[in-house]
């Protein structure tokens, strides 16, 4: 099942992508404005265990705005 985690900046989105890919996910970046109420942000999109993905990112100090 496809998941998206909204992350504020492109830098952190790219960091999140690298971290997830390093943990066995196949993550991609996309622009996310419709689900992000503050106006502009990026999301990492991936298939797989979203709870594990969130934990990995939080442990790597990546701030998660929203999970879709």
């Amino acid at each position, binding site marked *: 099942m496809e998941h998206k985690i909204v992350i504020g900046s*492109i830098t952190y989105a*790219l960091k999140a992508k690298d971290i997830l890919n390093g943990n066995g996910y196949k993550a991609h970046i996309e622009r996310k404005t419709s689900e992000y109420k*503050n106006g*502009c*942000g990026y999301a990492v999109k991936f298939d797989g265990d979203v709870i594990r993905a969130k934990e990995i990112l939080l442990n790597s100090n990546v701030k998660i705005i929203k999970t879709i």
Partner: protein
Amino acid sequence: MIYFDNAATSGVKPISVIKAVDNALKNLSANPGRAGHKAALMTSFAVYKVREKVSDFFGGGGAQNVVFCANCTLAANFVVKGVLNFEDHVIISDLEHNAVLRPIAKTVDNLDIAEVCFSDDAITVENFEKLIKPNTKMIFCTAASNVTGKILPLEKIGKLCKEKGILFAVDAAQAGGVIPIDMEKMNIDYLCVAGHKGLLAPMGTGVLIARKPIGRTVIEGGNGIDSLEVFQLPILPEGFESGTISVPDIMGLGAGIDYVKNRGIEKIYEKEMFLIKRLYRKLSEIKNIILYTPFPEIYEFAPVLSFNISGKHSEETADFLDKNGIAVRGGFHCSKLAHNKLKTTDTGTVRVSPSFVNTVSEIDYLVSILKKG
């Protein structure tokens, strides 16, 4: 023209740097961190990779800690104006460039200046320690003086800061790409780097690496994040990159770092110091030449040397050398404090700063011209 003014900016950029800039102008024209189309993401990724390179090179703790800015001066301003408050006490060295002195003097009420000892680092560290007060928030010092070349004992000062719970900021304008700097090992919280000197990138490249947060934004505007919010959050790195960043210059910086790493930072430094040591020895044999530091031992000095011809203003000497095809910088080098220390506020000094592409015969030619003059 023999270019001996690399402390101002590196005179020769490697072909790989030029190619990286050219490639970016041709193939990375989209604005990074704004849109979501392929071109924007490709440029964003390229910029991210350079952030990673910068962080790896300096022990910066991750790409997210790397802020690109126009120059090292701006990086210093971000640290000072983003971190310090009026009531804070700050200690700087007596060799600081105006890029550090001026923003601090404008921002804090309480500033002390520690004397650097050219021949004994332990005394330098003691001089910093003596000035620490209960409200000391930060030590901000140069890694290497742009006037004298003196390298400060960063690891020892960093250790002092860690023991005392004080923030440690470093101006590495003359040291980035010249001597190894490891922020983690040296306990450096904020590192300000000039991309266009030792890292051989174009002018217009500066970097701030922040391993600790910066509490306030300094320049606000569009940064591709939270566009519907009025107030910009000081989140690294984009919180400090308002407006469009210079992608071609950043690609040049990435290529410059690769060049220095591949060539070997120690090898480059040793070559440059060989030239400076040769110059120092030859100048010390000329009667009317004034030198201002002890002999520049390796890892105690960066490849920067100041001198004067007795009885002449430094600008006069620099002009004379220019007429003989040699580029040096005369005057005060944007460093009031260094010239106060050397007691050269009347004459300034002539500064020679070779690069690894300069040669022994160019140094010898400089000496021969000075002997004639």
